[in-house]
């Protein structure tokens, strides 16, 4: 066992609720996707890995070390939490700088590295605006910037693409790929398989706190393609956007669950995610965020676990 992450029979209870159930998996070098529906245990596993939760049973190591209360190990990792709350009065620049100072980086370097990290994630133009005014996708990018600004060995990203707009997704995925190319390791959770496919073939499927499968992504692609994939799009003009998207032959249905929301279902998610940015760019429609409800993935998981 010499993986970046080794978990053997790890269990975690929250009172009566089981967060992880004898989770056993080994995550190798490079980028690994942790895929599972909401409530599967992805965030619990990540909290265990960054030492903010203590396992009730089993053994877990990150970079060969026990992460619980392991302060030196924290220098080696960059963590991007799922939650969206920040100190909203801080600007993006101040937010990243502050967290770099907590790492012990000198003020001048903090400023320089924060600026560089914000540039990498495409937030330079918004760096001096308070984060409370950021869209959800911009916040995701700010959190990614703070996670990689101190040059960690491993990035642990909890749903980094959740709510990000199309351009933001491109930035985030590109940043993750570059980080891995440079020798870094990435653990990234998502409940949207098609997002992770763009950056890695290595996935671990998690459901009800258990690792139910791991390995190459293509093996389960066929299964998922039989279930229409839902995408919720935040836009000020959902009907105009639906009209523009109608030319995609693989779309199954459109719904308008709210005045600023369009819900589409597609049989070819990869094609949808590939074509969407171009359509948005051509029509100049305002798309503020994308999110995939996990019902399609959940259906596949129910199938997999019988």
């Amino acid at each position, binding site marked *: 066992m010499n993986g970046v992450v080794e978990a053997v029979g790890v269990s975690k209870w929250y009172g009566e609720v089981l967060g992880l159930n004898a989770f056993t998996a080994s995550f190798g070098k490079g980028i690994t996707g942790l895929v599972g529906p909401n409530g599967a245990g992805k965030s619990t596993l990540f909290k265990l890995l960054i030492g*903010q*939760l203590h396992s009730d049973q089993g053994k877990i190591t990150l970079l060969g070390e026990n992460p619980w209360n392991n302060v030196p190990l*924290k220098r080696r990792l960059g963590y991007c939490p799922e939650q969206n709350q*920040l*100190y909203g009065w801080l600007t993006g620049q101040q937010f990243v700088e502050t967290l770099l100072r907590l790492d012990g980086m000198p003020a001048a370097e903090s400023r320089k590295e924060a600026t560089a990290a914000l540039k990498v994630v*495409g937030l330079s133009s918004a760096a001096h605006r308070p984060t409370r005014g950021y869209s959800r996708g911009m916040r995701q990018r700010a959190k990614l910037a703070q996670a990689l600004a101190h040059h960690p060995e491993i990035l642990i990203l909890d749903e980094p693409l959740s709510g990000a707009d199309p351009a933001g997704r491109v930035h985030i995925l590109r*940043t993750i790929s570059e980080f891995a190319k440079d020798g870094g390791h990435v653990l990234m959770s998502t409940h949207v398989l098609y997002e992770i496919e763009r950056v890695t073939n290595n996935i671990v499927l998690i459901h009800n706190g258990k690792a139910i499968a791991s390995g190459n992504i293509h093996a389960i692609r066929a299964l998922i393609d039989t279930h229409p994939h839902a995408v919720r799009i935040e836009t000020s003009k959902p009907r105009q956007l639906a009209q523009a998207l109608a030319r995609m032959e693989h779309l199954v249905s459109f719904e308008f669950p709210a005045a600023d929301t369009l819900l589409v279902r597609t049989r070819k998610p990869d094609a949808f995610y590939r074509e969407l940015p171009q359509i948005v760019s051509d029509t100049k429609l305002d798309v503020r965020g994308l999110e995939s409800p996990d019902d399609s993935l959940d259906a596949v998981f129910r199938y997999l676990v019988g």
Partner: protein
Amino acid sequence: MSITLPTYSRLEIPLLGRRQRVWAIIATGLRKELRRPAAIVVMALGAAFTTITSIAILFIATIIPSGQAPNLTFFSGPASNFFVLFFVSLMASVIGAGLIADDLQSMAFTLYLSRPITQLDYLLAKAAILAPLVAMVTILPLLLAALVAAFLGFFSWTIALEAMGISIVVGGLLTLFYTAITLFLSSLSRRKGIAGAGVFAVNFGLTIPAEVLTIVIGNRSILYLSPWDNYVAVATAAFGASSTGIDWAVALAILLGVTVLAALVTYVRMKAVEVITG
């Protein structure tokens, strides 16, 4: 759509030590508090009101004929100023109650602890944010009262300087006590309102019943239950004034004991805390 991006590259940067990391938490915390109108109002009102009343108490004591020349015992009056209790409670509630609770409620605590920060670093930083603010009503008014009195010639500089030294010690004791208690209460809940209510409960919920029961029953030992009365007993003894009826040494032991216990329990609790956010 065409997007060009700079590429990521890794580099090594020598990192600063623990003191700088703790200071980073303090600086962020202070910036956060100094942006809140409620915190600024309480700080300004607390410092101004306790200082003015402390000076007034001292002057009244010197004006009223008591048959003795101005001496150190006169300073026990401002040290026992009841407005200190009120404003220290208000300051601890408005500023201190949220110091840990707010971080637990938001993702700030998650981010703090994802950095090379120990729970002790975190607690020391939070104490370093709160203690100077509490000292603005527990120490500063006593220092200013002594200073003004010496400038106006009510007391000799020797007495004033001695009073200032004692003020720092007894005010420091009260500051440490409220800092430890407030951080302990703040660490118990994600809701700062509960911690804030706890501070008032510790102060007025113990002080007022203890004083009422003392009068009703006639047993002054009940006053040991009240942190304020314990402090007043210590402060009065420190300035050489006549006893308040309870033993200052026992009162001091209680205040120090509770302070240390609260700090230890908070540390142990933070050491074991697990960040469950959803």
